[in-house]
């Protein structure tokens, strides 16, 4: 984006956007401030949050408490596996739908699109029973596998591969590249923007997912961060440890923030719907 395009924004718009952004940020700042206060001080009066002394004791407790570290690890493993798996499968499926001729291709693609329209709520009981019958609950496999069926990913990658002119494949074939090499060295690198979009969304989704981990992971050591933090609210910590709870929330949000900062460019593009450019 050129700076010329940015310059001519009306003052009113700038003020409006700034205010809206402030409103969005306010609760997060509130969480941040609370997390920096000793829980017992907050018990007496939450308005003490605005005055010193502030402390990092809540964060020290998190790091000291082995449980949160385990949940953090679980969330990381599950999110990374799911992201990697979705990218891998969606790329292959997308290439297949876009470039290979096989009987039933169009019907199969429509079936995939139907997947977009089926909400998780509709299948969750059946899914639970399936994993229960297979005695797979409380495993990483159970946490990751349902997320790998990603109709949106297949759809996105298919459209993306279709948008690449076939002349490119043909040029590579004439250059003596095998089908795999055309896919791997020529087409796949061209889908990096779509991969980034899909990867980021999948990662966020996996990281923030609450419902399926809540159902599948009942063993305290298999909880993900979201489920773990929510579970903390039901014990004494909810009443007595507001500061600790808020520190957990900040802690849970940090990886997402880090990912965002690293992939900011792609995320903004993805949200702006310009991933194709």
């Amino acid at each position, binding site marked *: 984006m050129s700076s010329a395009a940015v310059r001519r924004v009306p003052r009113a718009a700038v003020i409006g956007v700034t205010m809206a952004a402030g409103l969005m940020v306010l609760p997060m700042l509130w969480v941040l401030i609370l997390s920096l206060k000793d829980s017992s001080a907050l018990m007496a009066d939450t308005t003490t949050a605005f005055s010193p002394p502030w402390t990092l004791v809540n964060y020290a407790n998190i790091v000291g408490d082995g449980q949160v570290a385990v949940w953090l690890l679980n969330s990381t493993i599950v999110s990374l596996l799911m992201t990697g798996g979705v990218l891998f499968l969606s790329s292959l499926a997308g290439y297949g739908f876009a470039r290979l001729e096989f009987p039933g291709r169009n019907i199969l693609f429509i079936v995939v699109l139907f997947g977009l329209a089926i909400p998780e709520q509709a299948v969750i009981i059946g899914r639970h029973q399936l994993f229960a019958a297979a005695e797979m609950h409380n495993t990483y496999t159970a946490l990751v596998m349902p997320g790998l069926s990603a109709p949106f990913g297949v759809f996105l990658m298919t459209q993306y591969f279709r948008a690449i002119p076939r*002349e490119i494949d*043909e*040029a590579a*074939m*004439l*250059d*003596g590249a095998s089908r795999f090499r055309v896919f791997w060295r020529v087409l796949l690198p*061209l889908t990096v923007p779509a991969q980034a979009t899909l990867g980021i969304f999948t990662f966020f989704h996996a990281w923030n997912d609450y419902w399926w981990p809540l159902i599948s992971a009942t063993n305290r050591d298999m909880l993900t961060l979201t489920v773990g933090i929510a579970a903390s609210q039901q014990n004494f910590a909810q009443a007595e440890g507001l500061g600790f709870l808020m520190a957990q929330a900040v802690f849970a949000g940090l990886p997402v923030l880090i990912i965002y900062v690293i992939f900011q460019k792609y995320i903004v593009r993805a949200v702006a719907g310009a991933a194709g450019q």
Partner: protein
Amino acid sequence: MAGVELSGVSKRFGDVSVIDNVSLEIAQGEFVVFLGPSGCGKSTLLRLVAGLEQLDEGAILIDGNRVDNLPPGKRDVAMVFQHYALYPHMTVRDNLAFGLRNTGVSEDEIGGRIATAVEKLEIGDFLQRRPGQLSGGQKQRVAIARAIVKQPKLFLFDEPLSNLDAALRARTRIELAQLHQQLRTTMIFVTHDQVEAMTLADRIVVINERRIEQIGTPMEVYRRPATSFVASFVGTPKINLVPVTAANAGGLAAARMPDGTLLETTIPWDEALARDGATLGLRPENVRITGATQGQAPATARVVERLGERTIVYAALADGTLLTTEDRGDSTVQPGDEVGLAIDGNAAHLFAADGTGHHAGAA
């Protein structure tokens, strides 16, 4: 030995026949142009040679070896596409090197070949750029360079100039001609632009509706068009095609034009011309403007186009038939003027009802 040989090649897409029993021999080192209107199948024919389409019948040989069962990468051909088809994520240098690496050429050799191509096509300044950072003309040069470094037995071009502006197209055309003179490699060039065909080709293959209409040198195709289609497709301004009644006048054909003018030609008489009416073909340069009372036919100038070195006059015969005619560059003809038309019967063509061309002189 033939550089390329097609024998009895046919191609269908589903039920639709796109190439129908085409046979063709291209000599080693020849520059052949496939010329035809949009949709006639010329790209398909080229893609069959490249291996990007599978043929349904027939055989294709390159350098005497049958290639129609080989994948594109094994045919030792290089192709330049209409939309360049450069790899967008690779630098220009990697674009050139990709095909060579695939076939296991050593890095030293790759460097040498790229250096040669860079010099020929003057692309040295942007070797490290990506295609997105190049102009259309620069992309086209890179695409040509990518073909050259492979040192193939055969070059294939599918309308490589059609995305360039007029000036650049003319320049690149000349460069391609020079390139062919240097390399002396067999080239097949597809275009629907007859000027490109005339200027570049050793031989033109005129294609229409799935079939070859004529194969010949540019001048043969221009002077002795095999069919009325070829006559109307080659040459600007377009040839005049006038329905006539042909008759035998002492072994030569004479044509009665719609306004009643009788044009004597030097075309040997053939009974085929008598059946179902024939068509007279007159190139504009063979219908000259003269004074109102001179020439074979009187006419009225309707539209006058002054091109500088010559003037194109669209003139109506007495019955309203419109002919494209030529006059000198300093012509004073105005629209509405009564003029005479001097028609050169020796240069006339006659087409029988089935479209077959008949021309003056020995076949």
